[in-house]
């Protein structure tokens, strides 16, 4: 196997330091194809420390005399330090880790080897198929159908096999519309809001180009959406680019929907940051959070300078705008930017959380992530190749999914009783999106996952998460079903830095853990009392 060629030294004596609070761990360090292991000497407990090599974001080595130090910065923002005996060993291990952590091949990655006890392959892959969501839509309205026009991924390589489209539009028209949209991402249903009868759609930009080309089938499709909603329904296109950027896109073959040929639809521009600037914002914030020497004023100006919270605010307000358009004004909403795989998904998924009580449950949220991010073709492999510590120049990396999780956290902070899941689930999703033993976040699209046989050869994160031992961390004990829309405040005073993520490894964890424990204790005590009514034995 190719791994062995990359492993220069497979063991050394080392001491691991995991931050100022935790006690150092001493033992034998081993490098395997997928892991870094530290096994303490035989005298102590068999407490094995294990790190997935895939989760190493950057590595720094220093050698002094006959020992060396390796600093590992992980994708979950943890910083680890290994003091290793032997200069040569240090360099060899560093090089091995470097090589092994940046392997690009999917099918040799750890999820293809991970076989945890108690889970069977293929178990949870059918938890959240798109067909399942269609069943719900079909119960609510008859205006939509499930189309398998993309069965072989030829129409749109980033869409799943089945998508939900207006019943009045046939597959032929769909394929024409697909040709008119970047990457073939024609408008499909993202969410049906039953109380108002309106829908949320997503797509990519139309390829109108400098000549302002049209596509009759695409126009027809959007007309059918309005006709299917209710007579006289209006539509709003939320373009996640500035109007200037949208006009510029024409030069390169993209563009926007011309108002005249899409009657009933009007366009709003709410520019959202994406791509490299977003990645840089993330890097800058993590850097600021790791710098303990700054004064209070420096901290606030750095927080402002990295603009992360501004991105949170913009993402939430755009999602609110979309949700408001549906719920308050009875309008159908189409969201797209350029490619329709990043900020578009951010807006559609957040709007659903705001409007749909079901998506705020544990299963509903997992389904939302599966449907609106994984199946919808957010290129996880490209976007999450590196986290905030990588020195490599970012190519396709962008923390769009993390921004989504942060926005969800803000919703949870403002409505602490309305989400069935807790911060623990959001942290887990962040970790697994960047490096995971499970196959759920592998590859960039359903097509790629099919080619790699991810479904049959790896385990699903959902089955891993839904095991009983994880529940206390992941569930919110305070949850009470809230049937209403949850409208967050997007004022700067209401938005906070997500300390649980960005300061996770710098602040002492005990106070927050104790509080969480106490909340669980209060709630379970109450459940116990409720359950312990005296029974009458006759």
């Amino acid at each position: 196997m190719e791994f062995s060629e990359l492993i220069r030294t497979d063991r050394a004596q080392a001491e691991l330091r995991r931050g100022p609070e935790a006690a150092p761990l001493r033992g034998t360090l081993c490098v395997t194809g997928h892991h870094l292991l530290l096994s303490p000497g035989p005298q102590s407990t068999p407490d094995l420390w294990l790190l997935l090599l895939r989760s190493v974001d950057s590595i720094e080595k220093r050698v002094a005399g006959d020992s060396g130090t390796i600093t590992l910065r992980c994708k979950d923002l943890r910083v680890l330090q290994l003091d290793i005996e032997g200069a040569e060993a240090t360099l060899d291990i560093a090089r091995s880790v470097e090589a092994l952590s940046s392997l690009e091949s999917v099918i040799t990655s750890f999820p293809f080897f991970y076989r945890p006890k108690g889970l069977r392959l293929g178990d949870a892959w059918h938890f959240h198929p798109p067909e399942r969501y269609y069943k719900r839509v079909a119960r609510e309205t008859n205006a939509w159908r499930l189309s398998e026009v993309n069965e072989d991924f030829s129409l749109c390589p980033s869409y799943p096999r089945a998508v939900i489209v207006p019943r009045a539009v046939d597959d032929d028209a769909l394929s024409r519309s697909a040709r008119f949209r970047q990457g073939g991402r024609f408008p499909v249903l993202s969410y049906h809001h039953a109380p108002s009868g309106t829908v949320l759609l997503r797509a990519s930009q139309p390829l109108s180009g400098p000549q302002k080309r049209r596509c009759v089938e695409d126009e027809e499709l959007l007309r059918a959406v309005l006709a299917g909603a209710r007579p006289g329904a209006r539509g709003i296109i939320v373009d996640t680019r500035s109007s200037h950027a949208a006009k510029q896109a024409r030069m390169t073959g993209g563009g926007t929907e011309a108002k005249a040929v899409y009657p009933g639809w009007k366009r709003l521009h709410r520019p959202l940051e994406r791509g490299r600037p977003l990645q840089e914002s993330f890097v800058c914030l993590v850097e600021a959070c790791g710098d303990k020497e700054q004064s209070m004023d420096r901290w606030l100006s750095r927080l402002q300078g990295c603009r992360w919270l501004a991105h949170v605010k913009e993402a939430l307000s755009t999602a609110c705008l979309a949700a408001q358009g549906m719920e308050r004004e009875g309008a159908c909403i189409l969201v797209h930017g350029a490619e329709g795989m990043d900020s578009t998904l951010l807006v559609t998924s957040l709007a659903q959380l705001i409007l749909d009580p079901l998506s705020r449950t544990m299963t509903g949220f997992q389904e939302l992530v599966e449907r609106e991010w994984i199946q919808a073709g957010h290129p996880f492999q490209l976007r999450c190749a590196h986290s905030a510590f990588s020195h490599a120049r970012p190519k396709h990396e962008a923390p769009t999914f993390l921004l989504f999780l942060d926005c969800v956290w803000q919703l949870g902070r403002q409505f602490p009783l309305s989400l069935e899941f807790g911060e623990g689930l959001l942290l887990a999703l962040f970790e697994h999106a960047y490096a995971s033993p499970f196959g759920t976040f592998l590859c960039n699209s359903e097509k790629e996952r099919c080619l790699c046989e991810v479904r049959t050869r790896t385990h699903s994160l959902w089955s891993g998460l839904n095991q009983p031992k994880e529940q206390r961390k992941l569930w919110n004990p305070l949850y009470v079903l809230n049937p209403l829309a949850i409208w967050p405040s997007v004022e700067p005073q209401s938005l906070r830095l997500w300390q649980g993520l960005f300061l996770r490894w710098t602040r002492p964890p005990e106070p927050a853990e104790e509080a969480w424990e106490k909340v669980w204790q209060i709630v379970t005590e109450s459940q116990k009392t409720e359950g312990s009514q005296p029974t009458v034995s006759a």
Partner: protein
Amino acid sequence: MEHIRTPKVENVRLVDRVSSKKAALGTLYLTATHVIFVENAPDTRKETWILHSQISTIEKQATTATGCPLLIRCKNFQIIQFIIPQERDCHDVYISLIRLARPVKYEELYCFSFNPKLDKEEREQGWMLIDLSEEYKRMGLPNNYWQLSDVNRDYRVCDSYPTELYVPKSATAHIIVGSSKFRSRRRFPALSYYYKDNHASICRSSQPLSGFSARCLEDEQMLQAIRKANPGSDFIYVVDTRPKLNAMANRAAGKGYENEDNYSNIKFQFIGIENIHVMRNSLQKMLEVCELKSPSMSDFLWGLENSGWLRHIKAIMDAGIFIAKVLVEKDWISFGHKFNHRYGNLDGDPKEISPVIDQFIECVWQLMEQFPCAFEFSERFLIHIQHHIYSCQFGNFLCNSQKERQELKIQERTYSLWAHLWKNRADYLNPLFRADHSQMQGTLHLPTAPCNFMYKFWSGMYNRFEKGMQPRQSVTDYLMAVKEETQQLEEELEALEERLEKIQKVQLNHTKVKSKQSEPSKQSGFSTSDNSTANTPQDYSGNMKSFPSRSPSQGDEDSALILTQDNLKSSDPDLSANSDQESGVEDLSCRSPSGGECAPSEDSGKDRDSDEAVFLTA
């Protein structure tokens, strides 16, 4: 009453703070103690009450077509804008309020007219609630090293100190008096906190009148005596809370700081907490940031940093984490914190006003945020204390020293806030508090590294009247409800079990027992009520609009105010927390006109894309 030029103005509009388009029409009343606004809307008749003593500034703005705007900023951080149709009425209200908000005599303050209908005994008990000698006993005093001194009897030595003071046993009256003469306002070093586990103590005093070279033998002996009172330690720290520059500048005025050469075994430390003038300006700047209408994230963070407020908070925390553990009563009140001067309850020099107590309260909150299980009380407790420091409804925070309070017979003529808070203590409990926590660990271990990012902006305080900005559901209330229900169920369970036993004894005759009968009411009170509030139709404007800042007096007393309506519940100021459950709608229309104006837009012959620009201004 002679100051009220006009007791009632009709057709006044109360402007919504967030969306200026919305305003409630109603009638404005001026009473001897409150400004009251009653909305015309017949179904709600919502009321907004503002205590005169809460008013910080009143601003009459330029008259517009709709009327004359009057902006009132309150010390509890509420901001209210009225639009009064007639300029003359507005002027009358303005002139009246200017006078009413700045009483010249203590007797005009609300606490002298506030009457919660308690009898004399209850009132006296209220004042007994916090007994300083008990506090000292808890610290293990008096003991072999510290004794109660009567040197300040009748305030002979220092009029801003209380009469009862703890000093080292070895400090004679001669030393104390000598030392006091060498200290600003004669505030000689006296005990503040004693930690009996290791004999360590915290003493406090004012600056020495050292100038450039003056010395005082008695003062040096006094510090020596304090050092000896802790046999385990060879030196004492003298902590000067000023920036070094300020202390040095003071030497020119004959004041200054202790010279390490003259005092044996002291270690000197400047901490750099800015003076009251800097703090006042800093708070002012921060409040201006809070007042911004829909600021961008950048504007907000920039303004927050520029105000320096959190930096000051951090400086104070760094200086005295331990002070947070000392009770408010003892540290601030008995030891001559200049309440009247600092809080501007009476008309006086505005330069003497400073938000030191606000900062103390905020520091406690910052600690609570970092240690959610360590405090028995909740955020609401702090907010209510802050409210009442300025409300002048209770006598506790009046005057500048114990001496003044005694002269005014505060205890005989007013009520104590602590009794009021104690009565409602259930509302202030922190459900997460772990008693075991405080016993086992005692002190809170703050991160050793200077973690600036742990300090947060306290929107629960400074934007507390903008309810839409606050979390819409309260974890504290929910958990308290759960706890209460658990307790009730447990009691019911006990009762049932008792009954069951009886029944089973009688069962000889009856073979069957209708168990249904005895089933406890299963519906969980809290969860259903939560939903019912959540189900109330959302009101776009509702969240942000005028919150009735209700007078704590209303409802159950105070017949002077005839406005009392059925819908007035007796509750504490504004702070009705239960309505927060309802999910609110952020008014996005104030940032983009997508709101009501989203009607099919006419192109008005302009560029086809012209409607885009409007939405870009967000």
